[in-house]
């Protein structure tokens, strides 16, 4: 397998860290920020659901699941770009 030069290793880690911060932002937004507005969102109704309630009961959960699959693919792309993915 290929050894990374120090420069490439650093570039790899900064890309990985960048993705990490993006994901943390998604986590923070759907875990906390959106629910701060629950009382206001509850004024909007979709299919009978008050929107603030819906976000905490389903909306954020769907965002969590989708973002994790997206993350797994994205990080794998980075691994392959730098040639550090595992050989099967």
């Amino acid at each position: 397998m290929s050894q990374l030069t120090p420069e490439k290793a650093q570039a790899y880690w900064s890309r990985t860290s960048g993705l990490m911060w993006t994901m943390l932002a998604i986590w923070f937004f759907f875990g906390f920020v959106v629910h701060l507005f629950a009382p206001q969102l509850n004024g909007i109704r979709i299919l009978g659901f008050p929107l603030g309630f819906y976000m905490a009961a389903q909306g954020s959960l769907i965002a969590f699941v989708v973002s994790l699959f997206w993350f797994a693919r994205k990080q794998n792309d980075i691994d392959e770009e730098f040639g550090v993915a595992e050989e099967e």
Partner: protein
Amino acid sequence: MANNSQSGGGFINNLGKIYGLYTGGFAGFVIFLAILEQMGVSNQVIGYLFVFLTIGVYALIGIISRTAEMGEYYVAGRRVPALYNGMATGSDWMSAASFIGMAGSLYLLGYDGLAFVLGWTGGYLLVSILLAPYLRKFGQYTVPDFLGARYGGNLARFCGVIVLISASFTYVTAQIFGVGIIASRFLGISFELAVFVGLAGILVCSMLGGMRAVTWTQVAQYIILIIAYLIPVVILSAKVTGVPIPQLMYGQALEKIEVIEKTLGVVKGHTAAFSNAQGVMNFTDGLNFFALIFCLMVGTAALPHILMRYFTTPSVREARQSVAWSLFFIFLLYFTAPSYAAFAKLEVYQNVIGQQITALPGWVQSWGAIGLVGACDAANADTIYALCKGVKGNADGILQLNEFRIHTDAIVLATPEIAGLPYVIAGLVAAGGLAAALSTADGLLLAIANALSHDIYYRMVDPHAPTARRLIISRVLLIVVAIAAAYVASLKPSTILAMVSWAFSIAASGLFPALVMGIWWKRTSNTGAVAGMIAGYGVCLYYLITTQFYGAPLWFGVRNISCGLFGIPAAFIVTYVVSLMTAAPSKEMQDFIDSIRVPAGDVKLARTEDAISH
């Protein structure tokens, strides 16, 4: 991955077929019992068949998967595909509290209860982005292994074991308690006996085959628990709304609930956010909502029985995919739970409250008889309904809202009857609850026994112990821990549910900062990490114990279930400050960190006082 043994490879390649057949067989079994019921077989016999046949299947998987190899015993040979590891993690994760208790909490708490739904799912983002891939690359057997390798030896490892055991033992006690409740209810045997019946089931699964047996049993348990959870509420939704998709249709129920709440004069609405019992929105309730979410999420990413599941995938890439699958399988149950709560509330508002006492639906009486529901209109109602103790009814022959009591467990358990389904579905729900409790207990017991046998005995007491002896020690410890937990559970400690939530805060404060900073900040020093673990664990326990048992005032009104809100930052700050005050980690250690940050290549272990050799 190469080097699969012949039989192992054949098994892994045919997983889809094997579990497909298993699912079909289970469906056939349920239909067979339904036919038996129609032919007049008694409910008790059906309950027995459900409990013993499902436990028998788990035990059979445990016996087939027995092993005497270290790699198989501790990490299932590291060849569990992402999808199946996701299912196993799902049932490892979802406990009796999720399966039976959560919908009931949502019924009672409304919006506030959604903190559990959010907290117990969002934590998987932290698992995937911060920890699991790197721990998988590290590639040893336990979470304390990582602390030992990263922080120079046995002191850090020992601190990790202490936190692990404090968090996991209370948790496993609650699971065994749950097994006892379900088994005693459906078998009609005493609680104490039921605890030990459940214990036998848990031990046969995990003792012979360790992680390998637990993995394949947990996949089987996931299939049963998700079927059992979805069927009753899907049918109820079809009956109430005409569409069998409860997750979409309970919006209608929420709308109706809101209208009825107005006529009944309920001040705190089901969907109202951040409000107190008087229905007034306020800061403290909002703060507690977010504090609980935060502690449960961070705790998710620090509970060793979950983290160790990602040691079993074939690669780092599959570890990441596996976390995504885990959350998907957990999501299926958690986004259904609020619909149970909404449909049950609608049923209560429409068909129970305001009815003549003599005209109450049948389920009120049958679940009241075993103390889960109370219709407390008459002055002597507590002679019929145990839950009515202390409730003053006005004896007008009509059930008012304040005369109605319901136990959280009743929501899921009574739904089959509310939906007018035959008893076989109630038995199915019991089998699902049992699967949820048993699978979580399996994972927790294994985490504790591995920490004791691998980290304490092998790493710290006798590093030259031969494989055979290590495996024997591990199995003996498993039995000892299980019996200790069963003994505590049989005492029925009253604070048991609170203790489960504490486990999250304890794990989050004690383990999360050391794990995350060990991977993401190279400057973290041995002393810093140990000081941080002690500080986080100490602050959290101090707040818990003083507020719970000595009546100390709450800080900013934060309930002690969320003590991690103070413990986690304390641990991060202490780790940071002490690390900067002490020497930076050696070049060797930095190379080690570099090597676990990259999926490919070897792990370059730094020499520590207990250098790892395999």
